């Protein structure tokens, strides 16, 4: 499937993946993320239940310590 991930068009070799599955697929090693699919917040606790499908827009914000 083709998705828009953080403003980049990407081909993902899978028919469907959960948000957590996509994070693993992309090897995002950062633990503290906020995620949106098609503009809608997907909370940390929901990432195993929400699926990413062909044509979806996924945005991942990586939060880092310091302040």
């Amino acid at each position, binding site marked *: 499937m083709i998705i828009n991930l*953080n*403003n980049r068009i990407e081909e993902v070799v899978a028919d469907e993946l959960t948000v957590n599955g996509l994070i693993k697929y992309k090897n995002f090693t950062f*633990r*503290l*993320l*906020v995620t*949106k699919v098609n*503009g809608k*917040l997907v*909370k*940390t606790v929901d990432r195993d239940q929400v699926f990413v499908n062909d044509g979806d827009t996924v*945005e991942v*914000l*990586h*939060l*880092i*310590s*310091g*302040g």
Partner: protein
Amino acid sequence: MNSYNVDCIKMTQNELRKKLKEKTVGIAGCGGLGSNAAIALSRSGVGSFVIVDFDRVEESNLNRQYYFREQIGKKKVEALSINIFKIDRSINIEAHAIKMKPHDVKTLFGKCDIILEAFDVADAKMMLVESVMEQLPQIPIIVGNGMAGIGGFELLKIIKWAENVYVCGDGISEVSENLHPLAPRVAIVANMQANLALELLLK
């Protein structure tokens, strides 16, 4: 993710202060980001604050946070209130010395016009961003993200990440044993947050 730019807002000092006097800013975390942003917004004329931090001032905080030697040991929300009152005694401050949980977010910040995320730990940042997006989608939140170290001024930017979420910082410089948060860069990001808060409050 889009870079966020607006034109400079022009208005008279009286008009500016009159408008800002009616505004309430929520500040989550009163460390390097929160204390410096609160001082900038107080000097600018913001009328009310809700400040939240469970911590006390430590000697190691004085390299970047808006506190003073004689305030070591005081609760940060108390010390910050004193420092704000030294600038303007008429400012209203609601201070909460608690560790914020998701269920506190709406109660504490529901009446705010804008929220500044100024926690130091990424877990707390994530909790607040998710909670505000879910519980208070009508209130803008400005996140501080990535400001450790020295130099790299040109890497600091503002991104509009969601309808009500703005992110200030470089997004990469995480605090670690070899990468410390220091006054200049932390205060720059705190003041980017404060400056953006003013823009959004006056829009």
